[in-house]
């Protein structure tokens, strides 16, 4: 798993590529925790490069979303496709979050 962070005007774009499983999910969680500690509140997860996500990955997303909710932040998603989209739909996580086609549309929705 590889994480690229890009700060835009009104949100931080977190591009995750590779596999998000029990081994790599804690990295994702820690990285976003650090960004939150730096004061970032709005995140767009760009999952267009993510090929696999396990339940441990969903758990890290859930933990991050809850932490953001506590500070009135937001967690948006873009590029959720293929097997990752299947997992989102089956687990019901897809209904929890805003899923966008691209980071740009996600940024626009943040306003």
């Amino acid at each position, binding site marked *: 798993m590889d994480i690229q962070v890009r700060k835009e005007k009104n949100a931080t774009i977190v591009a995750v590529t590779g596999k998000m499983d*029990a081994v790599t999910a804690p990295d994702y969680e820690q990285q976003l925790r650090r960004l939150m500690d730096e004061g970032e509140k709005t995140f767009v997860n760009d999952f267009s490069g993510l090929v696999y996500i396990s*339940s441990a990955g*969903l758990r890290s997303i859930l*933990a991050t979303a809850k932490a953001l909710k506590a500070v009135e932040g937001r967690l948006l998603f873009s590029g959720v496709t293929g097997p990752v989209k299947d997992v989102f739909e*089956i687990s019901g*996580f897809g209904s929890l979050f805003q899923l966008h086609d691209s980071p740009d549309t996600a940024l626009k929705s943040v306003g």
Partner: protein
Amino acid sequence: MSGGREIPARGRSLSREGVTAILRNRGIAFKLILLCCASSAFIFLVIFGYTYRFSRDTIEKDTRERAENLARNAVSRIETILNAVENVPEGMASALENCSLTREEMLRMLRASVAENPEVYGAILAFEPHALGRKTRYFAPYFHKHDGAILATDPYAPAHYDWEWYQTPKRLRKAVWSEPYFDTGFGKIIMSTYSVPLYRTAGGVDRFRGVVTADISLEQLSDIVSSIRILHSGFGILISKKGTVVTHPDKSLIMTGTIFDLARKRGDPRLADLGRRMVAGESGFAPFPILAAGKQSWVYYAPIPSSSWSLAVIFPEDELAEDIIALHRVVIVLGCAGLLLLFLAVILIARSITKPLRAMATATEAIADGDLDVELPPATSRDEVGKLTESFRSMKLSLKDHIRQAAEAAAERERINGELAIARDIQMNILPTEFPPAPPRDRYDLRAFIEPAKEVGGDFYDFFPIDEDRLCFVVADVSGKGVPAALFMAVSMTLLKATARQGLQPEEIFARVNDELSRENRVNMFVTVFCGILDTRTGEVVFANAGHNHPLVLRKTGAVSFIKTVNGLALGVMEDAPYRRETLRLEPGESLFLYTDGVTEAMNPADVLFGDDRLREELQTLAGGGPDSIATAIMEQVKEFASGAPQSDDITVMAVRYKGV
């Protein structure tokens, strides 16, 4: 043939390896001694070689100069004598040509010249026949020394004119030294004669009248030449202008022949060449080809100008080196003594260095054998060995510490493993194992398997009757694995069972359990659940799906398809999440297949997923079978597919078949 050539090559490389191996296997002391002594010996040899070469060159140069000086000195002494002798007849010739002397006066003058000149052995005044008048045919008076007296011959005795000393100056019309000769007439000695021609000028023409001479005994010259001493056996020789050996330490060679005869006799062209250069009046150094005792020698030769003779000084080469050898014998003894001292010093130093090292080696071998209580030798100094000892001491302590910690960790691990084994037993005991469980068992059949990835897992299944006619069945997957998942699984399973038994619909069960799990869910764990309730009277199944994989239905027609359930959120994620109830009907003989993602996400060594399609196709081939054969076959298929690749997730399968009333 080629094999024959290879053998020595292999032998060489083996011996080189052998030498390296010997060096490698020896102790530090041996290497130190070898290196110190070898390098010192090398330095000593270089210095020795240089001084030997340098002093040899110097001594050689000195010897050459000495030989040259000796030769020049002898030449000049011989020259002085010869000049003194030459003056005698030249003075008389001058007197005879310029004054008109009577015969008496001539005899007196001749006698005086012998008596008053110690160098002169004898003198003769020989006139041409009738030169002094018609009456006097011969006039050739001769005086010579004999036992301290001056003897005279009869001046009027018939004389011979064929002597060289007479003919040569007459022919050449100038004064000359004769070749040495053995005087058979009076002297009975080897002599050489200086002859000056006499002329009388008449009518503008010089007419030859006779010669006046002086003899020199070669004994005198021999004394001078034999006084040349150089090194031990160096000596001088004198040869005439024709190459005749005039003086030589070996008397048998004197006057018996020329140097050219000698060269011919010995067949040595180099000797002849040397003779030619000497006769030509050259001077110089040359290797002397022959010498008594057959030693390689050197010769310095220089001409005696007045007589055109040549003097040679010969000295053997090896005597040149004698002084150097004596000097260097001392140097070698001193050098060897020095090397021996150095050798002893190095042994002492090496011993003192390696003694603590050897003690260390013994101690560390004991450590290597596992004896960490061995006492290390005391560090007596602050040098490298002392530091090494200190390092070993601390290494020993930290090794002891590490081993203790490792032992404790192993014990701890064993304890945890033991506890995990028990936990696994407990977890397996929670899961129902009686298939099918309860009446009405004749209306349905059910089989489930579970295979945790670790000792304990987060998957679970459950089935239990709600009332006489209805069976509730559940397949669930807790996020994560291991002990945390197992604990969350136990809680979820208990809640689900307790809630389901109240006779609620699946979506109501989910809503309640979800609220319970979501409240104060600090660990953010969740569980995906498929829950179905089969009415055994009708074959109707009501079900809800909380984030779980879509189950499959195996129809009587042989069709196998995923049930596209409307999935709610996994339980434990968020309170008040909505869940929807759905319904489907099973005809007698039709089955449902439930599973967790451990099946579809099982991976083979090439990282290929088992996948939904493969699952559906496998089930299609099993459509006619009972739940037992279906569940068993899928578990085997997954195992076979993974072909040894490590199992990353818990695997659970459940097959339920409705048999009808």
